[in-house]
């Protein structure tokens, strides 16, 4: 161990990883990070600002970045206008919320049960199955859109609620992160519970799940983003307009603004408002859970 005293007088330095407070040497990082962060933040600020712009500001020339006289008109428009097929936006919003809630809850259980098995259970195929899952981290779902469509068609899942949920649950990165996290729980904890006569289910439910809360929060965020932001499933697998999601509706709004001139004035304001509604839940959930995410990520290594 090197004390602070020796550190100060021998010139031995910890190079400032995870410092406790401000130090002059950090200024150069701020010099790089502040402009970069500001640049990256611009589109996000734009989403907020244009959602509240009245029509004359949306189409002002020269364009203004920030809103000067904010209004809720875009939101009231959005909620009063029906889509081309006569569906109110509240229906899309309801679908999105319901689908996202069910998917997140199901994903937590499905992934954590699999991760528990792959981490703490003993069985012959364990190593092989975990390897397969690790290879599947490299899986690019967009590449097999067509065979996936054929599979879903053959399972009669087209135009059902399930098709929104089930494909999203096959999330290799979720199982991978949870398994790495459960590996950190000592075997003794589980052995002690077994001696006390706890069943497998009891160990999973009563011991493992409470101990991996940070990792569960991370999976919740990943699944939330995958489900809430998903427009492809509605486009590809759903023909019934009343079962499509908010993300899909937003994509039709942006398509309308580029093709039809007539729809463009009202459409662009509504699209901006809808984009804000899409973005906010992501932001709120990540802010609430970010501490948990970081503690999960420190164990995310691929060996």
């Amino acid at each position, binding site marked *: 161990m090197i004390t602070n005293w020796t550190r100060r007088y021998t010139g031995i330095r910890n190079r400032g990883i995870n410092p406790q407070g401000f130090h002059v040497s950090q200024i150069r990082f701020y010099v790089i990070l502040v402009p970069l962060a500001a640049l990256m933040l611009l589109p996000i600020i*734009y989403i907020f600002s244009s959602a509240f712009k009245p029509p004359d500001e949306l189409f002002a020339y020269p364009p203004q970045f920030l809103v000067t006289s904010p209004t809720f008109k875009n939101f009231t428009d959005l909620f009063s206008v029906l889509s081309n097929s006569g569906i109110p936006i509240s229906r899309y919003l309801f679908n999105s919320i319901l689908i996202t809630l069910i998917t997140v809850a199901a994903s937590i259980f499905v992934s954590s049960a699999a991760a528990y098995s792959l981490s703490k259970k003993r069985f012959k195929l364990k190593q092989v199955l975990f390897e397969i899952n690790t290879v599947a981290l490299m899986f690019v779902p967009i590449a097999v859109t067509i065979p996936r469509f054929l599979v879903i068609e053959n399972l009669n899942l087209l135009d059902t609620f399930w098709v929104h949920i089930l494909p999203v649950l096959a999330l290799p990165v979720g199982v991978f992160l949870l398994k790495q996290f459960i590996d950190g729980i000592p075997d003794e904890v589980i052995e002690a519970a077994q001696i006390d006569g706890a069943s497998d289910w009891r160990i999973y439910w009563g011991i493992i799940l409470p101990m991996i809360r940070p990792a569960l929060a991370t999976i919740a965020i990943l699944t939330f983003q995958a489900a809430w932001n998903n427009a492809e499933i509605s486009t590809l697998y759903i023909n019934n307009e009343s079962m499509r999601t908010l993300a899909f509706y937003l994509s039709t709004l942006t398509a309308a603004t580029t*093709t039809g001139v007539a729809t463009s004035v009202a459409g662009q304001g509504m699209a901006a408002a809808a984009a804000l509604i899409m973005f906010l839940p992501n932001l709120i959930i990540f802010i609430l859970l970010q501490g948990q*995410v970081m503690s999960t990520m420190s164990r995310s290594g691929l060996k």
Partner: protein
Amino acid sequence: MQIRRTLQKPFGKTLDSTLYTENIGSKLRRSFRGWFEREGSAYGFLAPYAALFFVFIVVPVVAAILLSFTFFDAVQPPRVIGLANYISVLTQDDIFMRYVLPNTITFAVIVGPGGYVLAFLLAWMLAQLPRIPRTIFALILYSPSMTAAVAMAVVWRTLFSGDQTGYLNSFLMGMGVLQEPIQWLQSPQYLMPIMIIVTLWSSMGIGFLAMLAGILEISPDLYEAASIDGLNSRWQEIFYITIPSMRPQMLFGAVMAIVGTFQAGAIGVTLSGSNPTPQYAGQLIVNHIEDYGFLRYEMGYAAAVSVVLLLMVLFFSRVANRLFAGDP
């Protein structure tokens, strides 16, 4: 060792038992029951995920491989044509060779390693800030990755809008750089650079968070020891201490960067609003698959291109593995 012994024992028993004149059926049943008691609950916990994994990942990949050897137009049943699809990908598909493949490689080589190095450097800088500013910066840098592509399309379309009300046009015309507005998203020479910028902008994703956490986990003692041993420059420190100590996170970040790069392939179509993109300027493999699969219904051919894409991802991940795997 212990695991192996417990696994081998029951098999030894079943083999021996065939020597005795006992009913084989009851033997099998007993050994199944033994297996079920030992491993049944493990498979029970695994089953729901395994089933979904099989249906939505394994079957589509296998189906893509099988379909790639057929002619299939979604009307008649697939007809086996051997390697013909692959041969036409390599020799006859002019658009693939002239636009799609070079575009994909340009895009992947800049966005993949570029985004990855950027993510690492930013994570490294963030790790040297105190907790609260670090969290705020991490949130800002990560926020583009959590934004839905459809929501971002709203922003990019306005920012790069082709008439004078577009922000970029208005800004450049105000500065006197441009005399008249440019159709940014419709002109072949600008579409690709814009795609690259937009994708880089949202490349601080889960891999970035993993690397940040990895850097923060490295024990300060390592840096102190290195400082005593005379390691002095920052770059030496990054290459001899930081990266070797967080190889696993580096590899995870690399795989996520590769997957993210190829997964982002739809961006050109999202931005320009059409598939194929103007003069194929922003056409990536993913768009080519969609073009053939869903627009021309040449599903067998599209499957062959999908297989090529999956092989590319696998290849780049292997390269990353070579770079970061192994003991430090």
